[in-house]
């Protein structure tokens, strides 16, 4: 018989352990390892049955419990006892007490008066103080800086720049491929023009091919606004674009 536990209510394995020790009125300095391990594993089992995402950290603590339990069950080695071996549970107890400390600290933080919940400040911005900076400007720190770059990388194949092409991929070949992809007259997004799961070199060559096409005005680029999707299409009078760069030497990438 075990108590049904809602795991969402726990912040992690340490929180769950603390809860078990409390509800079963165990002595934290003399945790009955067999009992608590059983309780804990029972709950992990329930998590699996409920098809919850059994987080690795819950399993890690399960392994720790089993390990401590097995060490306690081993017959005492007299030589080791003389060396005053530490109770195998000691580190766990320290961690639990330390965790409890920060759990208490979190509660006392919660109780502090908070802006917008318990008190308010004024939003006055004197009309005399010129709003020379736009509203969307924000004060930033390193995090915001790194985040900005991170965001950019997510949206652009940026490796292109510092590459020297050594791979035997032909730009001319990719130029042809791109034209073929656009040949049915549909508009395609910048992203669509790249192969699925491309190699770096493939990205580079595709991009160079795209630049060539744009330079030669064989492809039309459209973008509604900053950061929005870039669309590629063949210009309306694009009938003649089929046979251009058959010859690799026509481009300077040979």
């Amino acid at each position, binding site marked *: 018989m075990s108590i049904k536990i809602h795991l969402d209510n726990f912040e992690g394995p340490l929180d769950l352990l603390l809860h078990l020790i409390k509800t079963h009125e165990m002595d934290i300095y003399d945790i009955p390892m067999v009992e608590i391990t059983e309780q804990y594993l029972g709950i992990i089992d329930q998590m699996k049955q409920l098809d919850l995402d059994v987080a690795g950290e819950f399993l890690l603590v399960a392994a720790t419990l089993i390990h401590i339990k097995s060490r306690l069950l081993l017959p005492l080695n007299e030589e080791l006892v003389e060396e005053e071996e530490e109770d195998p549970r000691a580190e766990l107890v320290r961690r639990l007490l330390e965790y409890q400390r920060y759990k208490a600290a979190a509660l006392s933080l*919660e109780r502090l*008066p908070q802006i917008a919940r318990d008190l308010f400040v004024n939003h006055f911005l004197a009309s005399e103080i010129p709003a020379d900076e736009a509203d969307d400007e924000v004060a930033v720190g390193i995090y915001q800086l790194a985040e900005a770059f991170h965001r950019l990388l997510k949206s652009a194949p940026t490796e292109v720049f510092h590459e020297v092409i050594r791979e035997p991929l032909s730009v001319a070949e990719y130029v042809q491929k791109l034209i073929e992809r656009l040949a049915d007259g549909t508009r395609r997004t910048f992203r669509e023009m790249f192969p699925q799961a491309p190699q770096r070199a493939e990205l580079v060559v595709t991009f160079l091919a795209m630049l060539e096409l744009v330079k030669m005005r064989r492809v039309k680029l459209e973008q509604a606004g900053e950061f929005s999707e870039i669309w590629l299409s063949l210009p309306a009078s694009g009938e003649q674009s089929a046979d251009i760069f058959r010859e690799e030497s026509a481009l300077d990438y040979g």
Partner: protein
Amino acid sequence: MDELQRLVEAFIFAAESPLSLDKLCQLLERQRADLRPVIEQLQRDYPPLQRGFFLAEVAGGYQFRTASELAPWLRKLSKERPFRFSPAALETLAIIAYRQPITRAEIEYLRGVDSGGVLKTLLEKSLLRILGKKDLPGRPLLYGTSRQFLELFGLRDLNDLPTLKEFSALDPELTEAVPLTSEAMGQVDG
């Protein structure tokens, strides 16, 4: 009210975050000794518990804030429910507040769970800042709390944090805090 006091009052009122004495000195081109009595006078003019707002000392500066006992009324001003921290966010914030500078790995050891997502959220809310990198292999980032953290919780500085309790046993108060639903507690499965 003399000109200097008017200016100090106006500066504190118009600033978007708490104004420190040093900043006031710089803005007004005055010495601290000139301004300290002015601030003290303002603190008497705007005492807690008497007017709609008072002159609070917070995050190393001064700011007018409403009295917290008026909050139930004032919350009617905004339609949205006030932001509430998740237990995970509070726990992480507490660890960082008391242990800064601290690495992500140290936070995760203390909490026993992955804390990347929580850290990201707290960084995005500007409650944390990156203090540098630890002199360890891999040079992990060191996290600390920001001025906005002090401002949000109305702390003068980090020494103003509630005392961190030392526990030698389980805390009965925290047992109650475990947010188990009564329904969950009562159920028994074979």
